[in-house]
Each structure stands twice: as C-alpha cells, then as structure tokens.
C-alpha cells in the first residue's frame, strides 16, 4: 500500500470518528503543553535573565581566599600572573583568557546633566582594567554587528551618500572624518591605552620599571629595542635633575632613557612631534641636524593647551560633545556672525587635560588651566550597568530610558583620580581629572563601574599606591569555546588553588537549579504523556472492537496485515502530531498571557525581559517527537491486535 493511499484511508477514519480522535488528542495536548510551556519558561529565564546577568560561557576565577591546598593533595598552584594565564589558556574548552586588574586607589566619577538632569552627579568610582588588545577585537566585532545588521545596511554605510570633511567638526556627532569622508565612529577601536598623562612628583609613585621622568611615570629603557612597536628609547631633554627621576640632568639631557612614542609613522591624536635637539648630525637617531633640531628623530608629546571656556564647559557637563556648545567656538571665543570659528588648539576627539589641585572645601576651584591635549580615557561598560542605569532613570529620575546600548556610545563623564568621598588612602593627594568616553560594552566588564585598558590601570595603581601596588591580577575571566565545555573546565579548575568568583559560583547554582527544574518538568510531562498513551490504547481497543467487521472488509478487498497495522499506527501519529501542534499552540498562548500578566502586575525590575519564554526549535521538535512517540506507544498493542484478527471470523459475525 502506498503512503499516499494509506494517508487517505487514515484521514477517512479520522474524519469519521472525530470525537474519538479529539478525545485521544486531549491527553497528548495537555502533556505537550506542560512540557513546552515549562521548558520554554526555564530556557527563557536562562537566556533572558540568567545569561544576561551571568553569561553562560564566561567564568571568573579568583585566588582562593582560604587555601584549598591544605585540605587536598596534588593541588597545582597557579599564580595570578602571565604564567598562570598561560596555564589556564591550555585548558581544553577555554577559548580565551582575560586577566583583570582592579583599581587599588580611590577616585570619583562625575556625570553630566544631560543624562542625570541639570545638575549632574558625582559619585565614588570603581573601575578595573582588561587587556585592551584582547577586548578590542570583541568590541569591534559587536560594533560591526550593531551598525550593519543587513547587507543593505553595510552597503549603505560603505557606499551611501557621505559628507566630505576636513575634520570631525564637519561631521554630525557620532561620526568622524576618515580620509575626507564622514564615517560613523568605530568606538570599539578606541579602546586602547593612549598613554594618558598622569603627573608624578617622585619616583616612589611609579611602577617597577618606570621612572618619574619629565613629570610622569615612563617606562625606563637602556637604549635598545625594548620599547613597544610605536615607541622609541629616548633620553629626554631637561633643565633640572628633578625632571630626570633617579637620573641627573647633564647638558640639557637626562642620564636615564625612557620609552616614548616616536614620530615615525605620525603621532596619536592630541600629540605632536617634538624634534630632538642636537648640535651635530651624530646626535640624531634619524635624519640630520638642522638649526639645532633633528629632521626625523623626535618624540610624540602631548600638545600643550590652556583650558578655555569650552574646556570648562565640557568639564562641567562631560556628556556634552565638543562643538555642541551653542554660540561658542572650540577655543571658547564667541562664534562669528556666520557661525564660523578659528581652528581649535586641541584637535578633535581630544580635550585639554589640566591638573587640578586638591584643597579641602575648594574642590575644583583652583585649576591652573594649563594642560595637555589628550584623548579621553576609553571605558567599556557591562550591559548590566545600562540596565541598572535605565532603572534609575525611569523610576527615580522619571526620565525616559535609554533605548539601546548604542545610545551611550561616545558619552562620557569625567573621573578624578585620587579623590574620594571616603577616607583618603592615596599617597599623593594631587587629584587628576580626566575625561572618559564610553567606547563599547562587554559582559566581561565590571558590573558596578567601568573597565579601562589594563595597562592604564596598572600605571594608575602604581601612581597612586606606589611601587608596592600589587602586580598580580585580581581575577581572571575565562571565555569558553561553548557552554558545553563548562563542566570539563570546572573540573579542571578544581585542580588549581583558585575559586570561582562569587558571581560565577552563584551562576553555577542557578544553572543547577534550572537543570533540575527542566528534569522535573520532563518527568512531569512524561507521566502525563504516558497516561495519554494508556488512554490511546484504551480508545483504540474500543474502536477496533467496534470496527472488527470493517477490518475484515479491508482484508477481503486486499489489505495486508501490515496495512491494517499501519492504518492504526498512522492514525496514532496523527493524534501525536495534532496533540504536539495543539500543545505547543496552547503553550505559546499561555506564555503570551503570562508575559502580559507579568508586564501588567509585576512592574519594572532590572533585567526585565520582553518575554520570559524561549521556544527553542529543538525543544519544540523534542516535544512533538515526544508526543509522536507516546501516541505510537499507545497504539502499538491495539494495532497489532487489529492486524492479527482473523478476517473470516470477523466477516461471518452476524
């Protein structure tokens, strides 16, 4: 019997006995709806709530607070240093390892009025550092995903109408001028240590290997190639010994050398090339000596600047963008009648970073107004921050929430290192105020603060806590190749003297609870479906008894035993399919209703998802497969009995 014909006969039977069919389907429907509803709920909670608070594929580990080694033998100790990172990188299933460094000194943030109402707010700053090289790739990738969702978007971004420009001011905010054209700023790529200037007065505030040279902590070098790729080893010019850290000033040159950005290949934004002074060609590393200056050799130095009206405005309202202050030019002079301005001293995207002096009671009062052009310190936020921030905006400040993550990109604020609302613990009480710019989001970032490039945090730690500031990482984040590697990785981690961070440990607990919940719903659904299967057996036996004679007729006109068996099994498959479909439809309907009620009666809370339910195709398929399986199981025995009936006997029955 061909499948098509078989199906036709099955449909005839179903149509004839709709009541039985529906009755048999009800049990399966209930089982499937329970299964799908609760699985979707647990998956939804995992995906929508838990994974946003605790991403599945991230684990954070910390040095064990109590030594585990004492209670267990064969513990391999690993340090929270590059060697330890290398060991962790070797674990199978670990895709990447991100060491983290916390700030070990005090600071405060100041956020502008645009986000927080007219006054702006200042609060205690917490921040940490992540390797900018590691994080940048991720930020750029996610930025690409955000800005160009479809091929069309990407093509438009690439070839669409673009404004010509000379500098960023010619473009709309959020755009930068690249090769004469306005392009959306690639914020992710800004996450780098721009060697922001942190002034120092003495050697003791610089990290090991650094010296307080030319007023800031710079990496010491012996004149070789040991400096980074875009840096060169120079002996800076000087007037007095104090400018040369542990060295002396001899003939206008320090006796110690430090790594400084070289001019070859141009200088970063906010820096300019200061040529080396010389008396003869031999003094120059590159080029020749012309009128006391080398033609090619030089160091990139932050452009000196004076804080102008615009800079002051920007400091007071850090979320304003340069060029957005009505009526004022970059340099603080009033705009000309036609709205034009003379060129600013600090180039676009940089600002004049000045030193301010701490005076009790007169905070921010005494700014000398002299500083250097610098790029703002790039910071990365945890999406959680935005979530909490939105909460505050909505419920406390009654302002509209920020729509997407992108909204905060390019915004900033300022941070004052060395100032605190608490008891000061910093060695050097000279606070330094810096601007921040949000360049991206990462779930590896600090949940209650901001994340900066690690090398900057390292320097800042040394600067404010002295050489003794620990050079150990505070924690290490492991990015897994996939959630499925979690058990294996956790098992391996047991061998080291480290522990999960509190958050990761909590996440583990939650995940276990959800797993148990899934198992319970699975068993519950199985029981309901098993009862449904028994119900199907019962109904089918009844139907077969009623249709005895018909089965005889079928056999008389040429149906094989297998045909008869398949007719009943096929009917049960239809029951399973209908029950599976109806069950999922009901589950979907219930989930909509539940979401609606939750939205209506629970009200807002952080991480509130649009929906608590995730109907994953694989689980829906599993629920239908389940329904089919139990229907078949229920029909199996009756179908066999029908196939085995003696046709002669059923036909001769009166």
């Amino acid at each position: 019997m061909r499948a098509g014909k078989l199906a036709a006969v099955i449909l005839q039977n179903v149509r004839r006995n709709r009541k039985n069919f529906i009755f048999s389907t009800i049990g399966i429907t209930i089982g499937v709806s329970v299964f799908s509803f609760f699985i979707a709920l647990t998956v939804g909670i995992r995906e929508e709530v838990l994974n946003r608070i605790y991403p599945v594929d991230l684990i954070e580990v910390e040095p064990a607070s109590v030594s585990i080694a004492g209670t267990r033998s064969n513990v391999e100790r690993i340090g929270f240093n590059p060697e330890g990172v290398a060991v962790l990188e070797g674990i199978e299933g670990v895709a990447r390892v991100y060491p983290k460094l916390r700030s070990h000194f005090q600071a405060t943030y100041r956020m502008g009025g645009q986000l927080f109402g007219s006054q702006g707010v200042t609060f205690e700053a917490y921040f940490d550092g992540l390797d900018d090289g590691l994080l940048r790739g991720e930020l750029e990738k996610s930025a690409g995903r955000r800005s160009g969702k479809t091929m069309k978007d990407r093509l438009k971004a690439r070839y669409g109408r673009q404004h010509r420009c000379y500098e960023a001011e010619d473009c709309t905010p959020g755009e930068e001028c690249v090769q004469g054209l306005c392009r959306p700023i690639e914020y992710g790529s800004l996450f780098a240590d721009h060697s922001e200037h942190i002034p120092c007065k003495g050697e003791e505030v610089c990290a090991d290997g650094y010296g307080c040279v030319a007023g800031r902590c710079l990496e010491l070098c012996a004149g070789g190639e040991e400096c980074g790729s875009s840096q060169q080893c120079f002996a800076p010019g000087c007037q007095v010994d104090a400018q040369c850290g542990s060295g002396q000033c001899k003939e206008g040159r320090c006796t110690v050398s430090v790594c400084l950005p070289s001019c070859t290949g141009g200088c970063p934004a906010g820096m300019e090339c200061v040529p080396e002074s010389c008396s003869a060609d031999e003094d120059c590393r590159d080029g020749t000596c012309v009128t006391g200056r080398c033609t090619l050799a030089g160091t990139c130095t932050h452009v000196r600047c004076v804080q102008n009206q615009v800079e002051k405005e920007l400091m007071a309202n850090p979320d304003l963008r340069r060029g957005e202050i009505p009526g004022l030019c970059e340099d603080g002079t009033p705009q000309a009648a036609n709205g034009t301005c003379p060129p600013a001293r600090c180039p676009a995207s940089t600002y004049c970073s000045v030193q301010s002096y701490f005076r009790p009671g007169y905070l921010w009062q005494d700014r000398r107004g002299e500083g250097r052009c610098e790029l703002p310190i790039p910071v990365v936020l945890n999406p959680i921050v935005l979530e909490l921030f939105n909460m505050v905006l909505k419920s406390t400040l009654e302002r509209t929430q920020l729509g997407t993550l992108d909204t905060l990109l390019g915004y900033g604020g300022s941070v004052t290192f060395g100032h605190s609302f608490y008891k000061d613990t910093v060695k050097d009480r000279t606070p330094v105020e810096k601007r921040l710019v949000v360049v991206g989001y990462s779930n590896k970032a600090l949940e209650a603060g901001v994340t900066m490039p690690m090398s900057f945090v390292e320097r800042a730690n040394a600067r404010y806590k002295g050489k003794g500031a620990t050079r150990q990482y505070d924690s290490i984040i492991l990015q897994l190749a996939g959630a499925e590697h979690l058990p294996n990785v956790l098992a391996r981690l047991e061998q080291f003297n480290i522990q999960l961070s509190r958050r990761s440990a909590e996440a583990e607990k939650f995940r276990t609870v959800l797993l148990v919940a899934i198992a319970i719903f699975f068993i519950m659904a199985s029981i309901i479906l098993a009862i449904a299967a028994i119900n199907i057996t019962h109904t089918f036996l009844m139907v077969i008894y009623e249709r005895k004679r018909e089965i005889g007729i079928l056999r008389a006109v040429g149906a094989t035993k297998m045909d008869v068996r398949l007719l009943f099994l096929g009917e049960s498959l239809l029951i399973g399919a209908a029950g599976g479909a109806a069950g999922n439809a009901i589950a979907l309907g219930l989930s909509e209703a539940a979401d609606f009620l939750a939205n209506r009666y629970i009200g807002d809370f952080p991480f509130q998802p649009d929906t608590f339910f995730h109907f994953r195709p694989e689980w829906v398929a599993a629920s239908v497969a389940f329904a089919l399986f139990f229907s078949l199981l229920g029909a199996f025995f009756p179908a066999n009995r029908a196939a085995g009936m003696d046709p002669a006997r059923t036909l001769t029955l009166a």
Partner: protein
Amino acid sequence: MIRLTSIHKAYDPHASGPVLSDASLGIESGEFVAILGKSGSGKTTLLNIIGGLDRDYRGQAVVDGRELKRMKDRELSRFRNRTISFVFQTFNLLPHLSCEENVAFPAYFGDVVPHRQIGVRAREAMERVGIVHKASAYPNTLSGGERQRVAIARAIFQRPKILLADEPTGNLDSASGQHVMNLFLELNRKDGVTVMLVTHDEHLAALAHRIVRIADGRIVGEEKTA
C-alpha cells in the same frame, strides 16, 4: 481455476465434528457453480477457504494455479485484491463512505486501476449494475437491493477472475434477488467471470451451470443443469 482436494476444517477440535470433511471440488474457468446446502452445512467456510480469508484447514486449495497455503500474507492479500472478490449476504459496505467511494475502495490496496482512472472505472462498474444514480449517496440511505448492487459493483471494480457470492440474495426480496442473480449471470456470460454462488434457494441454483450440494461439511452431490 479452482481445485480443492480433501479439505478438512474444524473450528473446535473438541466439537462434535468437523465443519468440512474431505471436501474435494474442481471448478473450471468461466463456470457458474451454485453451492446448495442448508444453513450451517459449511458453505461459507468453504468459500472463505477458496477466497484466502481462512488459512486454517487441512488439504489443498489451488486457485488460479496457486496453492493458497504456500502464499505469504502479502501475496494472499494481493490475490484477494485482484484475482477474486466477494459479495456477502450482509453487503459489508463501509458506512462512512459514499457508494462511489465504497466501489473504488479496493483501489487503495493495490494498483490494478491506474490512479487517474479510478473515478471512471468506479462509475463504469456502477453503471453495469444500474446504481450509478446513487454514486454519491451513503449506503444507509439505500434499500437492500441497491446496497447489494453497490457491493457487486465493488466486487467487479478490480475486474477479478473469480466472484465468490455468499447468499447474496438472502436479505433481499424476490424481485431484487432476481435482479442481482441476473447481474451475476450476465457477468459470467459476457465477461467470462468464474462465479461461485452460495445459496439455499433451489430456483436460483437452477440458473447455474452446475449445482454442488453440501450437507454437514461433505459434498454430497453434483449435477449439471440444463
């Protein structure tokens, strides 16, 4: 066409006697044979054996050159589908299908009739028995005679070689019975279908080529009619 040799059949081994004992019978192709016997004499049992519905017997039954006992369920079903067909006293139509669907029903279990011709052939068969005007009616709306004609249309739909009719007129009034009988005669005469007709009506039996008498499971006599 049909050759039965020493057929032995007993439903219950402890019962008083066998239902069929030592029944031997030969029927040629194109013959019209009437089986005549009292109720309970074993006529239906004999027909079920020939039709391959009953396989639980001793002896040999060869139909259309094939030993039925040696055939697997699949082959036997195919045989029932295309070589023979049944007409029952109680019509045995499927109540949830229209007359036309009933007639074409055997097509589901074989591919003798090409898919696109099913409708045409079903109507043809119904025309043959004069019931085509009831094609879309349901069996329970028809009279006994009409129902039996639908059953006959179903029986000839696949153009079988052998027609087994078990008291087809038993539930009909005499006029309808006569009509049905005429159909069988015509099918036999015009289409060369071998017909085995079970009856206890002497008058109907007399219309056959040959009468086989059966009593208490034994074939007690055969006679050629005029």
